């Protein structure tokens, strides 16, 4: 079977992409309004929502960047994953119920809509939409680039596509993504998330079993190899040290519910009581899929430091090299499909909230109403955003890095205080929200532009998130809060 490895991998990837296209066509028939396009008419069942929430959280980073980081720096980055139980608890204790209630009462379609409903401030809505748009472009550019690089690595290993260009891979992979996002909107996005989530869980579980069997003594032997070679890497804080790890824990644990592509999905469930089922399914799905991140990184590092495997070219090759060397061809096919699933499930969520920002939120903030024929313009915006992001990915490494900084940390810093605290504290004010978002953007931009090295490798996102949370509460405490609209006030009593 080994001689068919590449065709098998290609077949799995092609099958997966075919399913995505089919889901796009299926969802197109059910997408009749902007509300269907952006929030699926708030009619999704608990299984779909839970898999959509977890698969959106774990992007391609969890399948490629994560194992690469463990290979390069030991367990430092695992603090981003072990905080997931806290992250989801924060999301469901503080956001899920209220955001769903606000969505129903105010017929909101996006997170900026919710921010407006809570604060009654167009400036806060505009800043939230602007933050989302910047973040979406950055995240999308990095995800499209990752998707194209993976496709190129698969295709270039075959005789027929040995010289395939990165541009061609960007076009092919983006075309599938754009197709199902444009035709089916969020409905296609969440139903492909369902497929993607299942593939990711399957891939995670199978890879852990494979990784555990690479060394005869399992993970215990891999740990012993690492302990005798360096030791710091397999200890809880890895080689980057304790403060880098703890700053990630803070940012990822408390920041998860501030991610707009995650919070938006909490508006889509059919019944409020479904949250009781959605939370445990989400936590379980993430746990299984994230095990790939930990196990592949540790085993590859132990193999290289134990002189069993030759050093790899770059850390990001840890997962691909592991799959091509140690995984059965069918498993490699499932995992490569899972990798595309991980990337696409995050990218489609971003495309959707980005299109909402362009056609719904920003026009509403500026001229008081969204664009006419919103569904049509949402589809156009989805295509335009994809093309801009793909162009950024292809043409400017620097811009990718700069916009990439508007990723997790920026969303967490800008939106955690405004959304998580704001929906649970009546004393929060619009001025507090505006100051928190503005300062967090400034800090993140400044850290990126001036390439500021923070002591002990602490995360820049942590610094901006901590600052914005303090400013948000501090500014709000200094003001006399305005009375809330009756509906919002009553929701916040529940």
């Amino acid at each position, binding site marked *: 079977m080994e001689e068919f490895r590449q065709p098998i991998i290609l077949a799995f990837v092609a099958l997966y992409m075919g399913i995505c296209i089919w889901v796009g066509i299926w969802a197109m028939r059910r997408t009749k309004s902007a509300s269907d396009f952006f929030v699926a008419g708030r009619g999704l069942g608990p299984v779909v929502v839970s898999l959509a929430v977890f698969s959106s959280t774990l992007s391609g980073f969890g399948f490629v960047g994560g194992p690469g980081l463990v290979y*390069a*720096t030991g367990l430092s980055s*695992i*603090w981003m994953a*072990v*905080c997931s*139980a*806290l992250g989801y*608890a924060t999301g*469901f*204790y*503080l956001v899920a*119920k209220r955001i769903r209630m606000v969505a*129903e*009462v105010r017929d909101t379609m996006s997170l900026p809509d919710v921010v407006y409903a809570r604060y009654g401030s167009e400036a806060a809505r505009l800043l939230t939409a602007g933050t989302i748009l910047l973040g979406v472009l950055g995240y999308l550019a990095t995800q499209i680039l990752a998707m194209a690089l993976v496709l190129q690595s698969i295709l270039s290993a075959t005789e027929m596509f040995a010289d395939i260009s990165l541009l061609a891979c960007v076009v092919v992979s983006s075309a599938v993504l754009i197709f199902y996002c444009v035709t089916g909107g969020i409905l296609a996005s969440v139903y492909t998330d369902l497929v993607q989530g299942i593939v990711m869980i399957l891939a995670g579980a199978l890879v852990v079993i494979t990784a*555990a069997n690479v060394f005869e003594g399992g*993970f*215990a032997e891999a*740990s012993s190899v690492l302990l005798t070679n*360096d*030791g*710091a890497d397999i*200890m*809880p804080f890895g*080689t*980057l*040290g*304790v403060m880098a790890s*703890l700053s990630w*824990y*803070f940012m990822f*644990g*408390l920041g998860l519910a501030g991610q707009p592509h995650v919070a938006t999905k909490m508006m889509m469930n059919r019944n*409020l*009581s479904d*949250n*009781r089922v959605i*939370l*445990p399914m989400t*936590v379980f799905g993430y746990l299984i899929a994230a095990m790939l991140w*930990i196990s592949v990184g540790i085993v590859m590092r132990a193999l290289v*430091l134990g002189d069993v495997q030759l050093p790899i*070219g770059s850390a990001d090759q840890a997962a691909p090299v592991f799959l091509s060397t140690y995984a059965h061809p069918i498993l490699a096919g499932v995992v490569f499909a899972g990798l595309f699933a991980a990337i696409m499930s995050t990218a489609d969520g971003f495309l959707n909230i980005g299109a909402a920002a362009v056609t719904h939120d920003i026009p509403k903030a500026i001229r008081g109403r969204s664009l006419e024929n919103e569904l049509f313009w949402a589809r156009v915006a989805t295509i335009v955003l994809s093309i801009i992001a793909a162009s950024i990915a292809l043409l400017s490494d620097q811009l990718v890095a700069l916009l990439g900084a508007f990723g997790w940390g920026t969303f967490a810093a800008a939106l955690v205080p405004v959304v998580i605290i704001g929906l*649970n504290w009546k004393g929060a004010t619009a001025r507090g929200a505006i100051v928190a978002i503005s300062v967090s953007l400034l800090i993140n931009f400044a850290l990126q532009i001036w390439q500021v090295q*923070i*002591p*002990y*490798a*602490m995360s820049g996102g942590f*610094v901006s998130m*901590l600052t914005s*949370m*303090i400013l948000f*509460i501090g500014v709000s*405490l200094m003001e006399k809060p305005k009375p809330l609209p009756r*509906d919002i006030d*009553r*929701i916040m*009593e*529940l």
Partner: protein
Amino acid sequence: MKSIHFVFVLLLIIAGITAYIFMAEQPPGATGLQHTSINGLSVGGDRGSQVSALGNAPYYFQVAVILLAGAMLYMGIAPHRRDAQLKLFFAVGLGFALFVWTMVYTGYEAYLATGESNIAFGFPVPTTWMLWGIWGSFVVFDLFYVVAFRRYFLPKEDEAAFDALVREIKSEQEAL
């Protein structure tokens, strides 16, 4: 003290510890050293000097973060539903999280002092505490959400009150 004030104080404490860490002199190799022969792979360097440069600041930092997480989760429960049993659960749950964190940190310090660690469940003991304990200490809160959903998070009367609000708004909109 209201929850929000507690959250604010904890944020200021975290900011204070962070400022102290920023001002502490960073020993060479505190964030890892490039491996001598393998490109793209870093090794630990002198971990002991990093810990001694910061004292117990990282320990107290994480204690404050765990308490902050607890205080924020507590804010998610409507004030009139915060009864004694809820407070007991939060006290026990956060106590468990602090215990786990203490096991991670002291286990790590013991490793730095001796250079040795036993393997348990496939990993060095402090790492096993980190992988399963740190994750598990907040899974307890996830499970509590499932078990106590109808008591604290969405009681039937709250659901009915919300349905009434929706009906009220719809009838107002129809009247317009």
